[in-house]
């Protein structure tokens, strides 16, 4: 068990290294002189030279990478070219909106998906089951920004119930905070909820035909008890992976949703930094999100060992 976790942690190193190389190489793929591109047309030669020096672009590639990566491991991404502050500071200031948005969306998706999937499986081919499939297929096909805009049109423009965008800090005014987060959360969780519900449905269907479920019925246990205690528990095991994958989707989706609803989070900063050609921020934001994703998937794998006693990885 411990050996397994240790081995998985060790495997993390090459993946993070590859992620680092990809992020770092990106800046060197900029056509022409990266420093000149970042500073734009008006920059003087001295300014460009100074930036080259500051970014260490005059040194050989591997030296640059090594310096950059060791700094990254200490969470030092250098200074933003535009914001006049360290990149790490800029990101930390924007973690709350992104983190909360992702958390709300993931919670909502799970809360919708489990009951919907269970009911659809138990009443297979019913109207509800079909509605769920339509919901799930549309969720995957509708672009999240367009769904967000439809929500704004309905709830902000037509009904006037909710603010059309912006963000209120949770510590300033929790009620306003939640009001501002309702639509972004709906928009971000829609596709994940559909996918998750479909998965719960199909794994419930698998489990419902298993022997132990029949045995449970044969013992005379009530239907409800069999479904919730016996079937659902096992059906939820593959669910964990989908939660991990959905989280990645949501971290990516939050970039778009934060732009739709004008939320000052990491995603919005990333998009702004792309237009400002603020590459240290772009690198850092992308690197952080990828690292979070790798860690989440690791966590999912480790949780499997706890949840599913059939899984015996490295120990035998």
């Amino acid at each position, binding site marked *: 068990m411990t050996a397994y976790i240790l081995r998985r942690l060790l495997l993390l190193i*090459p*993946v993070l*290294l*590859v*992620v680092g*190389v*990809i*992020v770092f190489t*990106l*800046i060197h*793929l*900029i*056509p022409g002189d990266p420093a000149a591109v970042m500073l734009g047309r008006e920059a003087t030669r001295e300014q460009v030279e100074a930036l080259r020096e500051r970014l260490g672009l005059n040194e050989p590639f591997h030296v640059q990478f090594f310096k950059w990566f060791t700094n990254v491991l200490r969470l030092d991404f250098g200074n933003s070219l535009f914001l006049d502050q360290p990149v790490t500071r800029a990101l930390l200031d924007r973690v709350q909106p992104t983190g909360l948005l992702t958390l709300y969306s993931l919670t909502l998706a799970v809360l919708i998906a489990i009951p919907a999937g269970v009911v659809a499986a138990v009443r297979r081919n019913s109207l509800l089951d079909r509605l769920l499939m339509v919901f799930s*297929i*549309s969720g*995957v*096909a*509708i*672009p*999240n*920004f*367009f769904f967000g*805009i*439809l929500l*704004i*049109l309905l709830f902000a*423009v037509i009904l006037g119930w909710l603010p*059309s965008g912006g963000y209120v800090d949770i510590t300033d005014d929790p009620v306003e905070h939640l009001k501002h987060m309702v639509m972004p959360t709906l928009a971000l969780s829609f596709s994940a909820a559909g996918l998750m519900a479909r998965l719960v449905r199909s794994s419930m269907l698998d489990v419902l035909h298993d022997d132990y479920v029949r045995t449970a019925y044969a013992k005379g246990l009530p239907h409800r008890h069999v479904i919730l205690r016996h079937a659902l528990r096992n059906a939820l095991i593959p669910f964990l992976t989908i939660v991990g994958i959905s989280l*990645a*989707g949501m*971290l*990516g*989706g939050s*970039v*778009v949703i934060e*732009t*739709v609803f004008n939320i000052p989070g990491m995603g919005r900063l*990333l*998009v702004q*930094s*792309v*237009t400002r*050609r603020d*590459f240290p921020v*772009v*690198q850092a934001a*992308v690197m952080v*999100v*990828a*690292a979070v*994703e*790798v860690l989440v998937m690791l966590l999912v794998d480790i949780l499997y060992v706890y949840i599913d006693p059939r899984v015996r990885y490295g120990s035998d």
Partner: protein
Amino acid sequence: MAQTETRTTITQVTAPRARRFRLSSITPSSRYYWLRLLLENPAAVLSIGFIGLIVVLAVLASWIAPYEPTFVNPAERLRPPSREHWFGTDDLGRDVFSRAVYGARISLVVGLAVMVGSMLLGSLIGLIAGYYARVDTLLMRIMDGLEAFPSILLAIAIMATLGSALENVIIALSVVYAPNIARLVRSTTLMNKRQPYVESARAIGLRDSVILRRYIFLNSLSPLIVQCTFVVAFAILAESSLSYLGAGVPPGIPTWGNMVSDGQAQLQRAWWIAVFPGMFLFLTVLAVNLLGDGLRDALDPRVRKR
């Protein structure tokens, strides 16, 4: 090679005039049975119809669109849908329908080009990784690294480097979806390379490139086709997100994504600017996904029972 020849002769002998195309005449033993299954699936048929319509719009855009997509007409600003302007006009007086029709071009070009790009790149990597155990770990770790990024984020990062242009969108998205294809092709390659027919091909002295192409790649084709359909859908979605964020195709070219973005600013006064292109986008992606589901069910008899 010899095997395929024998097979064709047998089919010719048993079914000499199967060419005259009637769906019901295709029996489960036929090579085209999957086509019959596909065409018996109403969702797939509707999807094919809708995709066909979008293709026609895109190809014949300059004939179908009643106005130039970039024609600015201040006298006709923010007009609601009417007989002259089916989808209304935007804040510059441009015809939304004409722009949506031209927008179909970008979506389709990106969808198809990314499919081809990621399939070529992904298949090459997958074949090499699956066939040559020595480079497998290295290649697959790189794929792991690429897959650690949420796809839209990696696309944004690549676009930030390359700058906004149609071909850069295609390159960025091909790189983003290649690992997915590579993983699939690698797994079928691992399976196929232990098959007796590959061993015999090696025994008669065929070169690796021939074995990979004719014996391994062709046998991975049916799951690959299904996966490619989904790549088209993902690519269309991702392109629209990039355009919406202003990180895709240059802003002057009408795309469904940047039309929705323009429309968002006018949502209070003119809902039609964002809603019509958004619906085009949604329905196109929906149709491609349903076609993918249909193809999967038709090509993979194991899923069919479900």
